[in-house]
């Protein structure tokens, strides 16, 4: 089957690793503000974006998600002082490595979304969902099941 073929009724599934203090709160604010976005994302709450092990990201692709977003506080605003600086280093590398083995850049993204950025959360989710919808299901790195 060609990688590009998009089956009917397919809906992209996107996993968002959200830090508890900024991005999760930003998503809550989007909800409080009733900012609509497509229901394709699943938020997984972690204390800090620095908790997100790259192995979790690969695992998600293995199990069949179509896109992964790692999101946390803006650098300098980390609830845990420096966590997101490590996140930034780690995922600058990881992003390049994933692209190097053939993962399309849209499939893995990282963003800083603060607790007050409900609209930004909405906009990022809209954008990623659209990008991934246009690309079709991800089959790269995916296990056989």
């Amino acid at each position, binding site marked *: 089957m060609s990688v590009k073929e998009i089956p009917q009724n397919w809906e992209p599934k996107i996993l968002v690793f959200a830090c508890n203090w900024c991005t999760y709160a930003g998503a809550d604010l989007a909800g409080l503000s009733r900012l609509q976005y497509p229901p394709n994302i699943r938020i997984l709450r972690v204390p800090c974006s620095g908790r997100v092990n790259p192995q979790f990201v690969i695992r998600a692709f*293995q199990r069949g998600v179509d896109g992964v977003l790692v999101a946390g506080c803006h*650098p300098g605003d980390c609830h845990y002082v420096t966590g997101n600086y490590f996140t930034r280093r780690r995922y*600058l*590398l990881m992003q390049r*490595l994933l692209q190097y*083995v053939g993962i399309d850049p849209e499939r893995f993204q990282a963003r800083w979304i603060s607790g007050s950025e409900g609209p930004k959360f909405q906009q990022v989710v809209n954008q990623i969902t659209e990008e991934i919808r246009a690309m079709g299901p991800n089959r790269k790195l995916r*296990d056989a099941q």
Partner: protein
Amino acid sequence: MSEITKKIQEIAREILEKGEAEIVIGWEKGTFWYLSPPAFIDKPEDTQRLVWDEFCHNNLSKYLLDYKNHEGKVAIFVKGCDSRAFNRLLQDKQVDREKVVLIGIPCTGLKDQDKAKSLGPNGDIPKAQKCMECKYPTPLVYDYLIGGEEALNEVAATKEAPDFSDVKAVEEMTPDERYDFWTKQYDRCLRCYACRNVCPACSCRECIFDQTRIGWIGKANNSSENQFFALTRAMHVAGRCVECGECERACPMDIPIMLLNKKLIKDINELFGKYDAGIDPEGKLPLGHFDKNDPEEFM
């Protein structure tokens, strides 16, 4: 017998006789002419087994991990890349500098073992890939030095800068081409973990790929799990790989593992500034610290 072989035998004998170390780890001739596997010598008379030739590939620093609980001192021979590995192990607090005697060998580059096998002893055997790009042919740390300081200068003059042309070639492919390329490579992977077992950056007590209770990786030997293994291992050695190329040499399936490692080395240099692993045992690791002014791409 080469001049250097004579010298290493002499120094090894002296070290054992004087009791400076109880064991000397060097290389000896193996079953085939193109193999020089490690030799573990504990008797002065056995030092005549030691050799130095263009097939002394094994990174001996790795074997120090087997002697972590050994009470006495161990002496090892180090090429430039072995010495970087030693520094790395120091940085990882896996070896005690006081308990190791290092004998440095300025290395003019080794020969490609596989090509040797196919071309035969009389063939014109090329240098090993890793040696063609070696930036540190001379040992960075040693207690004794074969050939003295002059040898250092001679060898240092031969070093060549890596140009990452192989990495760039992959980067220039389309995403799908890249994926196909790597799938083809890792579909061959047997998950024998030979790459891990020889790697001096792999110093964990328990590797996560052996942690069945957490289930990081499935037992199935399929494309997906193999790639999980490849990517995870690459991230684990990121900023720590000393470019000794042992992973690739040990791989029975000829997977170009260094092509992944070099990608990370290239990116670390581009993103976070010049860094060569295993140069400064006191230094900070690229993923062990950060700079507030690191590139910002996630706005």
